[in-house]
């Protein structure tokens, strides 16, 4: 066990798998000598050389497209996109190709690519270094979408993603890259894809969340606990395939649901959670299903702290749900 940040866990997961499996390679912009703009691949170029840690030209569809070709060929590429905000030039390669290769070929070809990308606000990145567009990928059949909130999960989920036969979009909450630390086992282990985690047990209201927002929600839960409200915080860990059972079990227990994330609200991932609850657990509900999200605007530089739901805002929604 070593105390690691979330970022260090990401690096360690890649290193661990690259040592165990020759087929694992890294491809992306500045991932080599530079070690990545967030230092996620630091040291790996020196350890594994330029053929396994590939600096690419500045072109995201080339990164994903060639990674896909490598995966078709039997390799296990990890493609880094520098910021989620820059993933869109590769969108066609992701949604038309990567996501659909297994289906369109009747399963005769598979493309087990992991796309790692930092996402979310909180680093003063303004409009184009802060986005959370997970729903584009979660809506895309054929992709798995994973996002850890702790160093332990980051390592275990990333290793599971690398080993998965399906393409995985692995979203790294950059705001908490360095702020969360935890004892993390050395060597390989996996955290299963598709399984949520109860980050905090509670009985009055279910707060369903993921990524960096998990920590905001835990803070909010601590706030309302002082008012006698017992909030349960569900950390989804995987957005697709969703762990519907854990979500429903929690809501059936508490009778109240608040969905929290930092993406724009309209048609955001929170909508699916709300819709599923409204379809499958409506009779347990004692209050409207509330969503606390980013605003339906692009991200903003100066007002990022207002844009991002903070503990106080989440707590406000919890109270609103409780007092209904």
């Amino acid at each position, binding site marked *: 066990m070593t105390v690691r940040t979330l970022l260090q866990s990401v690096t360690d997961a890649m290193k661990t798998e690259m040592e165990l499996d020759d087929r694992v390679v890294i491809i992306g912009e500045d991932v080599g000598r530079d070690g990545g703009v967030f230092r996620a691949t630091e040291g790996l170029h020196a350890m594994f050389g330029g053929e396994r840690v590939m600096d690419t030209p500045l072109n995201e569809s080339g990164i994903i497209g060639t990674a896909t*070709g*490598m*995966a078709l060929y039997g390799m296990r590429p990890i493609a880094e996109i520098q910021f989620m905000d820059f993933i869109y030039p590769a969108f066609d390669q992701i949604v038309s190709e990567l996501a659909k*290769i297994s289906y369109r070929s*009747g399963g005769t070809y598979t493309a087990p690519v992991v796309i790692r990308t930092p996402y979310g606000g909180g680093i003063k990145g303004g409009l184009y270094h802060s986005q959370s567009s997970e729903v584009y990928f979660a809506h895309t059949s054929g992709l798995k979408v994973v996002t850890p909130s702790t160093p332990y999960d980051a390592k275990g989920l990333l290793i599971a993603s690398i080993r998965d036969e399906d393409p995985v979009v692995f979203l790294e909450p950059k705001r908490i890259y360095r702020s969360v630390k935890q004892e993390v086992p050395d060597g390989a282990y996996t955290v299963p894809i598709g399984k949520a985690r109860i980050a905090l047990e509670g009985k009055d209201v279910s707060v369903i969340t993921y990524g960096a927002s998990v920590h905001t929600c835990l803070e909010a839960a601590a706030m309302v606990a002082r008012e006698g409200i017992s909030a349960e915080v569900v950390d989804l860990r995987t957005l697709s395939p969703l762990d519907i059972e854990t979500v429903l079990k929690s809501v059936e227990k508490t009778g109240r649901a608040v969905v929290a994330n930092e993406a724009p609200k309209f048609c955001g991932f929170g909508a699916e959670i709300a819709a599923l609850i409204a379809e499958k657990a409506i009779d347990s509900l004692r209050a409207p299903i509330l969503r606390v999200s980013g605003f339906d605007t692009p991200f903003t530089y100066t007002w990022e702290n207002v844009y991002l739901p903070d503990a106080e805002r989440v707590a406000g929604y919890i109270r609103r749900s409780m007092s209904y």
Partner: protein
Amino acid sequence: MKESTVMEKKTGMLQIIDNEGNYRRELEPAIPEELLLRMYRTMATVRKFEEISMGLQRQGRIGFYIGAAGQEACSVGSTAVLKKEDWIFPAYREPGALLLRGETVLQLFHQLFGNSLDYNKGRQMPNHFNSREKNVVTPSSPIATQIPHAVGMAMGAKITKKKEIALTFFGDGATSENDFHSGMNFAGVFKAPVIFFCQNNGYAISLPTSRQTASETLAQKASAYGIPSERVDGNDILAVYSAAKKAAERARNGEGPTMIEALTYRLGPHSSSDDPTKYRENREVEEWKKRDPIRRMAGYLRKKGYLDDESDRKLMDDIDKEIRAAAKKAEAVPKPPVESIFENVYSSMTWNLKEQMEETVGRYGPGYTGR
């Protein structure tokens, strides 16, 4: 051979056989008779397969067809230089690549009918031929997306010190797409062992190549990526073969990628949904019919003494019978069962897909195939 107004600009191109099959001995590649005859048979099969399939389409027995008539020398001539371990990343006008590698006409019909024996399980429109066994990688409809895949595969082969190379096909229109740019550039930088085979058939649906780009030739686009390129007469199987052979050798020798621009022409419509009279002159089509790659190859084979009237007639008869029998057989094969809709989205079925499958089976019955 008369100069075309459409295709051949001032820049030269490699040509070995003329319209009558006369050939330039000093350029003639050494291809064994057996292989030459197999190439010829494949080209003729592609043509006949198209004729019959277009008929099926008009009768509503298949939903769509997208033909290769006039362009057969391109996919056949280039595929002929590969080893069977090499990989092919096709677009939609390369049934010849599959057939030359031994894929059956019957299998292609399974794809056209989208039946339960289709490798794709009936998920794609006709002419999206895929064959894992023959290393012909699943094509999609979006133009040019296969190009970076070919490059990635070739990079993979290089990294893992394997000898396999990649061949990818695309059209003139595809050179405008983003993925041409990214694929070519990555290939140049990583010296990937890949052959970029551009079938410049003069049009992207209705758009003539002269409006597709202001570049004099498509081949010269390769220099933007530090990649050597060659222009060939795409209706000349020997020219195609020779250029591809050279490119394959470069790739195998670690010298990196090559781009080939083959000047060709589609004699038919863009697809069964297209009306080419809206955008091109019949005169032009007639001009190109004179350069029919199959007739030209037949002329060559006759001159070499490999083919005569009788063997040619017999061959065509065989092909015709094979194809008609295959069409009949494939049409009789049932659809994949409805459950198949939910397979292969993920390596194991997720709860939401199971839920949707159960609902579907509830309505149509288990194993329902439409009958």
